[in-house]
């Protein structure tokens, strides 16, 4: 990883420039923990989530078996209720709950006026935490404050735990309880490269590549739109599949496809038409792109794929999150299923409608509402 070749006696300084050892930005990115530890193929990511879920499921099922073995006097109706209600959550349900709370971190960080990068890192920490832990092992409710507090420290935006806890309406020990577990689950890697920095870079570069062809006020609007799109993208799995500038280009494509295509054409000599231009695109570099050997058509394919993923906004409705939370509760506390059954029987006799999903006492009733958009 040494760019500068060892100077040797009498060598001309220009010889250094010819050295093939030049370290590119891509090389540096490939050495980052974000790439080494936190980049996956879709298959790897699916498998990882399945493993976490399987581990938690096995434990819950074991507990349920033990419960049945120690409660031999259960009636057929009670057993059926447990069979129906006390069921471990699925991988999809886990993901839904994580996404719900990840979005809550964003709105919470907004209320606390925290910098964009702090919020983004907190979301990243939180989502990574649940790539090693199941929501039925450690509740997201216990971790999301920790993720935000730890992100403040990691992003150099220190807030004392007392004042943080006060703003978060919780207590310091709750904030700190899972800090170590979080650090460990993060594999002790804390650096996050977010697409916002790349956005700033492209914003400047578009202005220079398309100088005189774009309106500055309009560019400001594109920038603001993109920032929002990027924030939404942080809740998708695109962050595990693509590099930050790829996500930024995808966001730009969503914000203004024509502008972005014009920029990419000028920059990398690529066109909408596709494969026919492929060989040309790689050889003919525009003036700006001369020093960059990026196969343009390949790049366009990648950012279009990425665009597909980040176009699907992740914002599970609150009702769904409440349902999953209830399910976790029942699967961990089969006794409460029996209590519920008892209550139902009693209310049946007083004429209430049976069969509605009740919300357990510890549910999300006080949680702020999300913006309500569904997938």
């Amino acid at each position: 990883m040494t760019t500068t070749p060892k100077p040797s006696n009498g060598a001309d300084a220009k010889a250094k420039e010819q050295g093939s050892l030049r370290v590119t930005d891509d090389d540096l990115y490939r050495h980052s923990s974000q790439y080494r530890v936190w980049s996956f193929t879709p298959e790897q990511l699916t498998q990882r989530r399945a493993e976490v879920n399987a581990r938690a499921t096995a434990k819950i099922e074991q507990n349920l078996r033990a419960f049945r073995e120690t409660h031999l006097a259960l009636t057929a109706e009670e057993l059926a209720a447990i069979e129906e209600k006390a069921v471990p959550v699925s991988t999809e349900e886990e993901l839904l709950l994580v996404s719900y709370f990840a979005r809550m971190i964003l709105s919470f960080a907004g209320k606390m006026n925290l910098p964009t990068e702090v919020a983004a890192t907190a979301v990243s920490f939180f989502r990574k935490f649940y790539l090693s832990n199941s929501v039925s092992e450690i509740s997201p409710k216990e971790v999301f404050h920790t993720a935000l507090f730890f992100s403040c420290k990691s992003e150099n935006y220190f807030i004392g735990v007392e004042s943080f806890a006060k703003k978060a309406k919780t207590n310091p020990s709750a904030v700190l309880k899972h800090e170590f577990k979080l650090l460990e689950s993060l594999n002790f890697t804390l650096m996050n490269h977010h697409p916002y920095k790349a956005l700033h870079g492209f914003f400047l570069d578009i202005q220079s590549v398309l100088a005189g062809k774009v309106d500055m006020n309009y560019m400001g609007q594109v920038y603001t739109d993109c920032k929002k799109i990027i924030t939404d993208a942080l809740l998708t799995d695109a962050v595990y599949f693509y590099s930050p500038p790829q996500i930024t280009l995808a966001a730009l494509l969503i914000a203004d496809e024509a502008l972005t295509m014009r920029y990419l054409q000028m920059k990398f000599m690529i066109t909408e038409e596709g494969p026919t231009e492929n060989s040309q695109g790689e050889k003919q570099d525009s003036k700006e792109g001369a020093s960059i050997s990026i196969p343009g058509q390949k790049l366009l394919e990648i950012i279009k794929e990425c665009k597909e993923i980040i176009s699907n906004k992740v914002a599970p409705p609150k009702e769904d999150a409440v349902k999953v939370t209830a399910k976790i509760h029942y699967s961990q506390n089969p006794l409460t299923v029996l209590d519920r059954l008892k209550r139902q029987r009693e209310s049946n006799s007083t004429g209430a409608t049976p069969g509605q999903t009740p919300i357990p006492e510890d549910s999300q009733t006080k949680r702020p509402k999300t913006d309500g958009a569904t997938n």
Partner: protein
Amino acid sequence: MISQAEYSKEKKVGEGTYAVVYVGTKQSSNRKVAIKEIKTSGFKDGLDMSAIREVKYLQEMQHINVIELIDVYMAQSNLNLVLEFLPADLEMIIKDTAILFTQADIKSWLLMTLRGVHHCHRNFILHRDLKPNNLLLAPDGQLKLADFGLARNMGSPQDFLTSNVVTRWYRAPELLFGARHYTGAIDMWSVGVIFAELMLRIPYLPGKDDIDQIDVTFRALGTPTDKDWPEISTFGTYNKIQFYPPPSREELRRRFIAATENALDLMSGMLIMNPHKRWDPIQCLTNQYFVELPEPTTPADLPQLNKK
């Protein structure tokens, strides 16, 4: 990363405010390591910021001139950083009057320092505490940047940074003026001062306190004017300071007797008052000083501390 059974702690070698350092062994390879055990009790805000920074930045850097973070693990709710074992530092070498070193040795240490700093900066990381004491020396002679407890990402232009960084003698003028925005140029200043110290074998700008540091710095290098540093008058304290003329080339030659003209150019480039004009690592590394004779000493042949 691996569990605690893999590492043994053999001897306590140091204790700081937030960590205890042990010499130990990595069992599987029998490699000698340093284990920094981060104290966790008694910190009301949870894990200490310095520890977080050290873990965060060292995880991102693999370079021969940056200390290697071999592993991290938790044990008894303590955080343990397993680092490369580096028995000496440049300050020990400078202070040990029994050790003689040559211009070629100085060139070698400076080259390795600049490579390490270049690697930090191209990863957008500021070290913010470069000094001989934080430049550690491996048994094979390689020099390694260490102690990233004050490091941070290079800020966005609108970020406010604290000027209370870098050990006093190695603090750049913009920091002495309390700048809230600064760049990698602060690290380059520190390297310039270290270069001077290697040639003089005594600290170059040893201010007694923060006020004195300003005086010592400008007495040696001249008080900057708004002609060479236009933004200077925006610093509140600027008008209160004593004016000194910059040293003539002849004065520098007399002070740094053994230095070549290229060496003086390089040192002066790193000690330019205006941070925008101060040389960056690439300018330094491609300077003629590293091309002219003598060649930098091969690391393995550099002077070492005498083993007792």
